């Protein structure tokens, strides 16, 4: 639906330009993909991201060591042929730990971002579409969550997920991430619900939830995609911050945050313990930010492009 609507707008724009050349009809998806691929930093970011995914999930099959496996012959050994990234004080393989941490960071970021953006979309759209009491209640909840210091709350609740799965942790992170987006979605919904196609759907007897899911949310898809991308990196950073103080992912499991927190003091004497996880983290965040920036430009209908679109 959104695709049809926006391609219609695009065809109107091309008509308005009044070119005598025959304009090739391009679908929205292909247009966005073409614009994205023209941005070299964004493509580079995507490549790095793919590479990091491959390293995180394939390295455990290639390297002989697992993240929970001790090498009692090598304590604090620098990078060598046996342990490419060196070992820790207790003889864990840094490469195995780093890839395990990378897996965790990727999962936390992706799952958390999808959850928080979805929650923001649903809450924002319902509060904007229905208005009234529901709107007041939801806005109050949003304000309250904004006032509560999320770091403190998640840290207090950290014993809850100490024995359970880290999924609770991701849920909590997402629960404190969605509020600002929900407000923006609400604003967008307020203007969208006055549009003709929403009125038409309403007169045809479509139920409210269907109008929201089929007509309102698809029309802000670009914004939601960009928001989710930004959320990935801010959630990964939030995880690192909490894990740094021991409130995040709990041992024996590791994340890039716990690795950085545990080894921050060793950065001078045993640099491999600190710089490998940090390096991977920086590469990951940089890649995500570049992809997000490229997506924003590619999805923005007002972006000015030189030459063909």
């Amino acid at each position, binding site marked *: 639906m959104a695709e049809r609507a926006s391609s219609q707008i695009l065809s109107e724009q091309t008509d308005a330009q009044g070119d005598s050349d025959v304009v090739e009809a391009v679908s929205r998806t292909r247009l966005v993909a073409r614009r994205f691929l023209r941005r070299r930093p964004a493509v580079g970011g995507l490549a790095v991201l793919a590479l990091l995914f491959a390293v995180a999930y394939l390295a455990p099959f290639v390297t002989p060591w697992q993240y929970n496996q001790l090498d009692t012959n090598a304590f604090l050994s620098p990078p060598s042929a046996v342990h490419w990234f060196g070992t820790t004080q207790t003889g864990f393989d840094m490469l195995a730990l780093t890839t395990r941490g990378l897996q965790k960071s990727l999962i936390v970021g992706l799952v958390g971002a999808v959850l928080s953006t979805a929650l923001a979309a649903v809450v924002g759209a319902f509060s904007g579409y229905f208005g009234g009491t529901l709107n007041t209640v939801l806005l*109050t909840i949003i*304000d*309250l969550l*904004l*006032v*509560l*210091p999320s*770091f*403190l*709350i998640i*840290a*207090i*609740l950290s*014993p*809850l997920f100490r024995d359970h799965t880290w999924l609770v942790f991701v849920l909590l992170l997402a629960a404190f991430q969605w509020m600002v987006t929900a407000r923006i979605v609400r604003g967008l919904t307020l203007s969208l619900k006055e549009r003709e196609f929403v009125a038409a759907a309403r007169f045809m007897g479509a139920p409210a939830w269907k109008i929201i899911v089929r007509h309102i949310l698809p029309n802000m898809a670009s914004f939601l995609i960009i928001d989710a991308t930004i959320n990935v*990196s801010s959630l990964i*950073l939030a995880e*690192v*911050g909490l894990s*740094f*103080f*021991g*409130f995040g992912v709990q041992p024996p499991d590791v994340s890039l945050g716990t690795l*950085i*927190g545990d080894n*921050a003091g060793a*950065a*001078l004497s045993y640099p491999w313990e*600190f710089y490998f996880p*940090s390096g991977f*983290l*920086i590469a990951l*965040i*940089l890649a995500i*930010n*570049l992809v997000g920036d490229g997506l924003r430009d590619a999805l923005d209908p007002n972006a000015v492009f030189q030459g063909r679109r």
Partner: protein
Amino acid sequence: MTAFLLRRLAYLTVLVVVATVVAYFLAATQLNPRSRYEGRNPPPPPAAVDAILDELNLNDKTPVIDRFTRWAGGLLHGDLGRTIDNTPVSEEMSRRMWVSLRLMLLGSILGTVLGVAAGAYGAIRQYHFSDHLITVSSFIVLAVPTVVLAVLVKNAGISLNDLLGFTGETKLLYTTGEITPGLDSWSLAGISNRIAHLALPTFVLMSGAIAFYSRYQRNAMLDVLGSDFLRTAQAKGLTRPQALVKHGLRTALIPMATFFAYQFALLFVGATFTERVFGWHGMGELFVESITKNDVNTVAGVTLFVAVLVLLAGFLSDLVYAALDPRVRV
């Protein structure tokens, strides 16, 4: 207008109260102050532990609602209760507040001013080499978590000390604490010692702020640069730099007002990671310690403090808006 502001103030006050109450109940039910006395050798008599916990209003045998009533009663008289070390929470907080302020003030001001300047300059010189340089460096800094940046800067400082031969007691740059103990705070030696302690954490805070503000300021400035009023300003005889500063920068600063206000309010609590790495005993550290030490009253106190700050920031951003945008002043 006044009625609206008053209603808004009442609403926000209710929010602060609710947030603090929620934090108190969460902390009181989830944290376990008793664990501080468990596992000691020899084990203290249970009656004595109960007596201490009762005195601190932290005893988990008292129903949580009773503990809350006692705490809230104290709060109404301006008493935030006592920490787990049996000192007043308010005393602890007011001491640490100033530590945080001393740590963050310089870095925030420098970071904001330089960030705005860099962003505006980048926008004016769009697609030139300097613009690319600013954009690329802010992208990289934004990808480095504060923790990692702080550790990197700290280690760079240590290496620089070694390199320049400052291996003894006196160092060029200090990496731990506020001041060398025993120095008089306001003597010349004391002040220069403070600056040597402050340099590295300030650099960390500053780089983060510059990267953040330059990205936003560049976008805001680019929006303004294409506008008609800027051309008009030049047409009436202003030089381009005059027009850019008086009409361009001022307009581009308006959307940034909210960021300024929030940053100003969060000066007191915003540097948890930098404090940890550089060993400053500020509010950020209290934040973390209150949880690891199961210190319920401090958790509630810190939450109240942060909530009030967020509130003030909202009001402050309205004020800054009014100062920068004449349309708001009716």
